[in-house]
Each structure stands twice: as structure tokens, then as C-alpha cells.
């Protein structure tokens, strides 16, 4: 197992806006970190500067070096996952051990159709 791991219930890769995401996070570290955070966020990737928005953070204080926790977070109504030629908006959960910032990330789609919205030109 890698040092940090995120498992989404049912191994889902797409959720409708407003949906609840459940799963389990696990970590196996050489020493106990001061804290581990699970962050629900979106970010942009493309030609321009990256933008990001953190929706929810769950903090696990003084965890054991190897442990696991179940989690439950709720998506907002927007923004949807989308891609064009110049910019993509990507949703993700990220598990971060503090303060050394080791991370694991699970990316997924947020859309009413289950597919990311494709802007003109990216089809």
C-alpha cells in the first residue's frame, strides 16, 4: 500500500452535483504526523494560471502512524467538471499529511450527466 490512500465507495468516478461522497482514507507512515487532512476541492488546469476552491476540509488530529478513517462529504451544486481547449475544471479529494505535505489524490467528475461538460473545440 502507498503511504496515503483514498478509496471511494463503489469506486465511483462520477457524481451528480449536490451528491454525498463516502469512502475511506488510510495511511501508513513511518512516524505519527501532527495531523492529516482530507480536502474536497476543485481546480483548473490549462494555459493560464491555476485557480482552485476548497469546499470542505476534514482534519484528523494526532493520528496513529498507520490508521484508516471513513469519511462523508457533500458536493455543492456547482461548478460542474468541464473541459475546453484552454481550461479544464477538475474535482478531487486530496489526503495530505502535515506538515510534510505528502499527498494522495482521487479525481472524479461532477456533472448531472456523469460526463464532464465538453466545451466547443475540445470534442
Amino acid at each position, binding site marked *: 500500500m502507498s503511504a496515503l490512500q483514498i478509496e471511494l465507495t463503489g469506486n465511483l468516478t462520477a457524481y451528480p452535483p449536490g451528491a454525498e461522497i463516502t469512502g475511506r482514507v488510510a495511511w501508513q507512515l513511518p512516524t505519527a504526523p501532527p495531523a492529516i487532512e482530507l480536502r474536497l476541492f476543485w481546480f483548473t*488546469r*490549462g*494555459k*493560464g*494560471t*491555476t485557480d482552485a476552491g476548497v469546499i470542505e476540509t476534514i482534519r484528523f488530529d494526532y493520528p496513529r502512524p498507520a490508521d484508516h478513517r471513513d469519511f462523508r462529504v457533500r458536493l455543492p451544486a456547482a461548478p460542474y467538471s468541464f*473541459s*475546453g*481547449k*484552454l*481550461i*479544464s475544471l*477538475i474535482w478531487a479529494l486530496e489526503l495530505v499529511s502535515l506538515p510534510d505535505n505528502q499527498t494522495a489524490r482521487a479525481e472524479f467528475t461532477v456533472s448531472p450527466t456523469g460526463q464532464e461538460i*465538453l466545451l466547443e473545440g*475540445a470534442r
Partner: protein
Amino acid sequence: MKARDNPFTADRVLRERYRLHDTSWDQLLARLAAFRYRAAIVGPEGTGKTTLLEDLAPRLAARGLRVQTCRAPAIPTDLTGVDVLLVDSAEILSWMRWWHLRRRTRGLIITAHRPGRLPTLHHCGTNAGLLAELLSAFIPTLPAPQRTALAAELHTAHAGNIRAALRDCYDRWAGSPDGLTAPASLSPCAGVARRDTG
């Protein structure tokens, strides 16, 4: 191609760090110490001055120096406890602000397009070979001859500005149907056609 799949996204470009070719970090830091940490990184636009300045900061901190970075004209007012101030684009400061900055700082490392304000620590330059080396990190699957030709074309077209060349690559790959196929604009014929119709 979707933006998320483009190999030349801004975040990917920013992850690329400065590549020293004609010197080593130890030599550069020794030279900087000889200059009493008052020196300039000089070079034209898009040649890596800011990246080199960013890469210097942790190396100076590792030597026990208290470092602060900023970008002109936003110079911190309180420099208490700062051993070395790293100022990007210092040449945009007025003569008066520059004079004050020099007096207020112990260590001062700046980036500038032209030499003169402080002794030159390093001159940032580029060539087609460096660009080809960078391209191999972004698009390792592109065959070497194509990569070399692309680097030569882009280096000339953008007058050595690597940042502009990589943005150009973003646009070219954005026109590619997927991340595996080189864009049609890489073909020599396409280049000729563009020039003919331009």
C-alpha cells in the same frame, strides 16, 4: 485536445526548474558569497531568471540565511531579520526606490534584463538544444528528430524566449486530437504553409 490532457499546461511548465549548464549550484553559491550576496541574475525575457531566483531561495535558506522573496514594485516595508532579499524584476523600480532598497538591505539578489545595477551573478541564456531538452521532458514520446526540429523552429520564432515557446507548444497541442498524436502543425510542410499565408 482537452486542456487537462495538454502536456504544456501552466502548472506543468511551472514545475520545471532552472537547468544550470555552464556552472554548478556550489559554484554559483560560492560566487554569490564572494559578492557578499549582492548580485544580479541577468537575461532577456523568458530565459529563466525568475525560476533561477526561486531556486536560489531554498539553497540560501539551507545555508542558514534568512531569505525573503518579492516581486517589484511590491517591496516589503519591514526587512527586520532578513539576511538576503530576492527581488524579481528590480529594474522597474525608480532610481529613488532602488537607492533606498540598496541602503536597507544586507544581501540583495535581483533579476534584470540588463546588467549594471549589481554585479552579474549569472547570465541566463537559451539555445535550441536547451529547448529540445525541455521538450523531451514534456513530450517524451515525440521522436527526437521532430523534437529537435520543433525546438529549432520555436527558438528562432520566439527569439530565445522559452516561456513563449512553451505557450506556443500549448496552442499547437491544443489542436491535436489526443495526447499521443503530434499536432499536424509540426510537419515541415505546415510550417511553410503558415509562413506563406501569414
